[in-house]
Each structure stands twice: as structure tokens, then as C-alpha cells.
């Protein structure tokens, strides 16, 4: 039984200027693994992540043959059921802690709240759990950090708080939407290591949305490559160097390398046919 199954997911933004078909016929399944969704900006990768949590705005049309988490049909379940799903079973780490943390609530309370939504526990118990969680994301002085406001902590620390907040209810799936791209290069690796350690320890599946093939190659098990709202290729991460789709190959080739010096990076030629072909697997 797959944890998450997605079949022919389509997302359309309805605006005054007409409809924009952002995600076309995306299908994949997720088991206990680390799945990456890779693509350039506008390829629809973040929209897929939002659709899984049913977070798209009301003017967005989402259809799918199947969009199911275990037994729950995400598209048709009630508001109450989807709320029970969010956080408790599927949660999401967003890009920039500067914006994704509530500026007027202490970080500790925000973490504790994530737990208290789904568990019947006292304020005190939640506080203790949150402090323990802060320790787990390698924050040195958790008691002190608990009472701080988001603007008082650094970006790397903010993203660790975000991870703590999303891991604390021990969900089955975490969707990480470019979790390190807003961070300083020096702390990106730390944050990734912490995330990796926690999801392995708690046995959480990961959907890692990124534009960075290099990162994904090392970090994930399997990669979906998206282009123009479609999945053009689905491939195991360790076979990426043997990718068959020209787009994937193009992405791989345009990565600069320290070992092989090149005068110019190749510019990709794009084939309109990619927008209609069936994905390669």
C-alpha cells in the first residue's frame, strides 16, 4: 500500500486574464522514501506540493483521478478531515523562515501549538515537548530560544525552528519546499543534515522540492523532473548521470563542476514536444 498516490493531477489557476494550466497530468506514488521534485521556477513543482495539502487558493481548480493519502481522498474529504491530515500526517517546510514564522508569536509557542492542535495535552506538556524538540534540532539553549521572537533569531536557526515545528507531530510525510534556498550557504548543509537525521529517526517520508540537481542527487532516493507543468522523467537518484530525457540531461550538463573546467556552460535547447510526451520512467 502506497502512503501517497497521485494519478493525473491537474491544477489550473483561474484568473481574470484567463486560465493558466500549471500542472498537467502529474502521477507518482510515495512510499517510505525520499522523493525529489526538480524543475525550474514556474515548472509547477511547488503547486504540486500545495495541492497535496489542499492549500491552493479558492480560485484554483484541482482535479485528479487519484489524490489519496492512505485511505483518505484528499480532493473530496471534508474540511475537518483535511485539517486532521495537515500537520499530523502531512506537513510542509517552507522556503524562508523570515516570512513563514509568525512575527508576533514566540517561536516556542509556535512549535507547541503544532502539537496542541492534534494532541490533548496540557500547555506545560506541550512546552516541554517543544523544548525537547528544539534540542533535537541542535539548538543550544532551547529554554531561552523558546521565548524569542522570529526576528531575534538567525535564518538558519529560524529554519531549524520550522523543522522542529513540522516534525513535532511526527507526520508520515514532510514536504520540503526549497528549504535551504533562502539560507546562507554556510548553514545550508547543517540544516539539511538535521532534517535528514530527523526524518530517518522518525521514519518520515520526504518530498523534497528543489531546483538544485546536485543537492538532490546526494540527498534523495528518487527524482521527478518537471518541465512546463509535466513530469518529463522519473528516475532513481543514483542513475541521474544516465538520464535519458534530453531535458534532464541538459540540466545535468549545465551544472558547473569543479573538476572539469569548461569555457562556457551549454545553453539548453528546448523541444516543444516535451510538453506533450508521456513521462520517461
Amino acid at each position, binding site marked *: 500500500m502506497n502512503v501517497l498516490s497521485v494519478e493525473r493531477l491537474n491544477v489550473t489557476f483561474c484568473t481574470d486574464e484567463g486560465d493558466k494550466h500549471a500542472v498537467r497530468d502529474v502521477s507518482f506514488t510515495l512510499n517510505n522514501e525520499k522523493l525529489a521534485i526538480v524543475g525550474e521556477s514556474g515548472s509547477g513543482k511547488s503547486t504540486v506540493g500545495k495541492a497535496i495539502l489542499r492549500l491552493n487558493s479558492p480560485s484554483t481548480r484541482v482535479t485528479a483521478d487519484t489524490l489519496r493519502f492512505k485511505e483518505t481522498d484528499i480532493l473530496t474529504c471534508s474540511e475537518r478531515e483535511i485539517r486532521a491530515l*495537515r500537520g499530523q500526517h502531512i506537513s510542509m517546510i*517552507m522556503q524562508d523562515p523570515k*516570512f*513563514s514564522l509568525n512575527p*508576533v*508569536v514566540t517561536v516556542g509557542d509556535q512549535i507547541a501549538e503544532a502539537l496542541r492542535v492534534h494532541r490533548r495535552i496540557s500547555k506545560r506538556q506541550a512546552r516541554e515537548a517543544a523544548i525537547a524538540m528544539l534540542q533535537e534540532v541542535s539548538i543550544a539553549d532551547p529554554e531561552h530560544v523558546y521565548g524569542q521572537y522570529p*526576528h531575534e533569531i538567525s535564518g538558519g536557526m529560524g529554519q531549524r525552528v520550522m523543522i522542529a515545528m513540522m516534525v513535532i*507531530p511526527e507526520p508520515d510525510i514532510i514536504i520540503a519546499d526549497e528549504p535551504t534556498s533562502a539560507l546562507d550557504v554556510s548553514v545550508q548543509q547543517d540544516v539539511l543534515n538535521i532534517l535528514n537525521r530527523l526524518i530517518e529517526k522518525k521514519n518520515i517520508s520526504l518530498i523534497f522540492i528543489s531546483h538544485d540537481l546536485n543537492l538532490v542527487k546526494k540527498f534523495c532516493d528518487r527524482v521527478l523532473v518537471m518541465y512546463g507543468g509535466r513530469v518529463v522523467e522519473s528516475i532513481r537518484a543514483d542513475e541521474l548521470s544516465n538520464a535519458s530525457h534530453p531535458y534532464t540531461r541538459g540540466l545535468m550538463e549545465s551544472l558547473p563542476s569543479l573538476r572539469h573546467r569548461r569555457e562556457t556552460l551549454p545553453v539548453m535547447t528546448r523541444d516543444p514536444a516535451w510538453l506533450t510526451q508521456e513521462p520517461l520512467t
Partner: protein
Amino acid sequence: MTRSRYLSVVRKVGVILITLLGLLTMTFVIGRLMPIDPVLAVVGPDADSSTYEQVFREMGLDRPIWVQYQYYLQDMLSGDFGRAILTGYPVVSDILRVLPATIELASVAILFGVGLGVPLGVYAATHRGRLGDHLTRLITLFGYSTPVFWVGMVGLIIFYAWLNWAGAAGRIGFAFDGMFTQYTGFYLIDTLLSGNWEAFVSAVRHIALPALILGLNSVSFIGRMTRSFMLEQLSQEYIKTARVKGLSERSVIWKHAFKNILVQLLTIVALAYGGLLEGAVLIETVFAWPGFGQYLTDSLLMGDMNAVMASVLFIGLVFVFLNLLSDALYKLFDPRTR
């Protein structure tokens, strides 16, 4: 305190001082422009010319205009605002006497403004683009567009003359005048402290209608501001985070978005309170409410220059103070500026 912060405080104080000087200058200019002869107002129409001359000199009116300006500033800064011709008392004591009535009226009105405006704004923001939003927009624009004095009269016709729900003009029924001790000058509180329940009911019946009507404008103002503040917050990323956690829409709105607009809202309420003083000038005239607004219009119509100038200056001061207050509230309560 850091140097830059110190400088900004100095700058701020400077700006306030310049504004205050400007207020004084403006009232001085208005006073000189007045077509009313200030000497005649003091000595009366029957005075002979020598008395007139004497008073004219005593008031410094024979001096050059800039010397008069200097006298004026000296008087104002030493707290001497002159005597009101109408009442014969110093203007300051007059203003202090009528002020509680206005504060009571404006305070009830602002409670109404916040109590209705905030939920209305939140509702509109969370139902954006739908019928409820359009209706709220229409309601708040109505609030902006109605002449307060006219609604006051229509209210009197309907609720006093036809339905007899509201009390007539004034702060309390005639029968209760002087029947309770004035501890604070606020009748709602004084009647309760005196244990005079019937007087309290009468006071409520008298204040309800004018306060509601006075508050209409602030309902609109606060409602529209709340809506736009909320819309701004609801589009933020942290709202998405809150939803991802599995919070109910109600918690998302009140615990997260609303908590972020509280400080902004507080500053807006301070400004709205200033706006109420403006409406009070009209409402007090309609309802014969013996407060500051009526004092101002009475003095105006009687040509009582001292009283008018002091009242205008006073309102200017209150406005400057409320602006400062709203600034200070922001600094005090927003964790980002602490």
C-alpha cells in the same frame, strides 16, 4: 540607547515643538483675521471712547503685530488663555468643565466603533470578493457618507418622537439633575456610584443614541482599516504555515492574522478617537449635549474670540497628543520594534 535612536528622538521632539509653534501661530493669525472687535467685546457697546482707548492699549493692540504675537505666545505658554466673554470664567476652567461630557460621549462611541468595526472588517477580509465583502463595503461607505448631524435629527425623530425609546436632548432627564454626586463628571459612572439606578437608566437612555450616531463614522473607518490590514496579513507566508499545522480557519484568523494587526489597530483607534472630537462638534449641537463641541459652536456663534481660539488650540493639542500616543503604542507593543 544607541546614537541613531537618540538622534531620532531629538528629531521627533523638534518636530513636535515646531508643530506646536505652528498651532499657536495659526490660532494667532485666525484671531487677528476675525472681524470682531476684541475691545468692544470686553468693554461692551455702551463704553465711552476713553475707556475704549484704555482697554485698547491694555490689550497691546497699539503695538506692532510681531510684538502682539510675542505677547500672545507669552500668554499661551504661561497657560493664560484669557477669559470667555460668554461665561466670564477663564477659558481653561470652562473647557475643563465641559470636557467630561464629551469624553464620556466619545468613549461610548469608540466602544461602539471598535465593537462593530473590527468584526466587520475581519468578516469582509475573510470573505473577500464575495457578497458579504461587497455589503460591508457599501455599509462602511454609507458610514463615511452620512452627515452626522442629519442622522442625529432623523434618529431623534424616529427614536424619540415616534418610538419614545431614546431620551430627549441633554445628558440626563431633568428630574435627575443634581440628584446624584458628581464624583468624576461622567454621568454613567457617577449615577452608579451614587446608587441611583433610575438616574443611571436615564443617563443610558440619553447617551445611547448620540453615541451610536457619533460612532458610525469610526465604525466605517475602523472597519475599512481592519479589512485592509487583515488582507495584508492573510496573504503572508506564516498564514500558510498555520494552515499546514492543521489549525482551524478560526484559529488561523484570530490567533495568527489578527494578533499581527492588533498594534496597527490600536494606533488606528487612537486616531479615530480624534476624529470623534470633530463629529462631537455637530452631534452635541443636535442633541444639546453640554460638552466641548457645543461650547465651541456657541462661542463661535457669539463671536467669543478667546474661547474659540483656546478651543481650537486645545483640539490641535489633543490631535498632536493622540498622534504621539499612537506612535508610542506602536513602539511599545510591537515585538519587532522592542
